[in-house]
């Protein structure tokens, strides 16, 4: 099982993701520089957090033109697992691999704090080690993480069950005061209709070891590992 972690100029969570992949999970790790036009046989591509290309113009707006992104789009079209975290989610939206957009937090503040996420879909390659309605404690760290989609897109997402994570209270109740950034429907993460491209604002790679305050994030990495190992064996 090989994870590819894409590195753009301005990416800052690549080493955190890489650490979890090879030190905590024990999987194979490849860093993919944004100029590479080869995904080097990876089974899951992670687009990590940061400020790719300085987030100039809009978050993720320039990163989507990187040579590596063309390959990521092709990989996703073939059903490959693509996982965008924070800035990676913003890039996936700009690239049209996921619907909607991430806009400035309603508070106008950069929010860096723990959040509780209720898992709406536990049947995905990214969440199979979770229980449905389970509450995960995973931190956010962003200034532009307010998910927006027009009403038609939003109702399609809801009808298709494409909302994977919602900001909730500790009991898993989706409440306005548990929403850290003004996202519509408290959305913290969505998946494409095929279920192989996940975008999420919270950072699972920052809570994969007890020393960092929690291990809920590791469940998502384990899910992907389990799925890919099964697929490789099958």
């Amino acid at each position, binding site marked *: 099982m090989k994870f590819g972690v894409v590195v753009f100029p301005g990416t800052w969570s690549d080493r955190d993701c890489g650490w979890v992949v090879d030190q905590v999970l024990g999987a194979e790790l490849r860093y993919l520089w944004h100029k590479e036009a080869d995904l080097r046989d990876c089974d899951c591509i992670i687009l990590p957090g940061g400020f790719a290309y300085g987030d100039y*113009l*809009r978050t993720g*707006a320039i990163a989507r033109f990187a040579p590596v992104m063309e390959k990521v789009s092709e990989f996703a079209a073939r059903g490959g697992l693509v996982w965008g975290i924070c800035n990676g989610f913003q890039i996936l*939206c*700009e690239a049209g691999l996921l*619907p*909607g*957009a991430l*806009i*400035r*937090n*309603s*508070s*106008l503040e950069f929010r860096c704090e723990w959040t509780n996420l209720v898992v709406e879909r536990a049947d995905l390659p990214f969440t199979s080690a979770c229980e449905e309605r389970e509450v995960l404690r995973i931190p956010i760290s962003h200034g532009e993480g*307010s998910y*927006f*989609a*027009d009403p038609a897109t939003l109702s399609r997402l809801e009808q298709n069950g494409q909302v994977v994570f919602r900001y909730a209270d500790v009991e898993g109740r989706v409440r306005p005061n548990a929403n850290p950034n*003004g996202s519509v429907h408290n959305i913290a993460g969505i998946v494409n209709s095929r279920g192989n491209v996940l975008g999420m604002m919270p950072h699972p790679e920052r809570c994969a070891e007890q020393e960092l305050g929690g291990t809920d994030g590791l469940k998502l990495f384990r899910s992907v590992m389990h799925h890919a190992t099964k697929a490789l064996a099958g």
Partner: protein
Amino acid sequence: MIARVIVTPKPVVNDPQGVTVRQGLATLGFAEVTDVRVGKYIEVRLKAGSEREARERVDAMCRQLLANHVIEDYRFDIERDGEKSR
């Protein structure tokens, strides 16, 4: 030619910056202000054979990069030799 592109958040998109600026203006006594939207201004210098060509090219630039159609609207003027047209 110079294209002067203005990108604004769509009316249905929350604009917390605009709300904050409106509150600031209200604090300063500008009670007549009913709404503020904060957007972007982008100047693009380009070579084009005609104004029509420039317009088509700039429109394509807006659609493909300068604005995100999910959350933003755009409009632009093209200026040529000091003349301005919409």
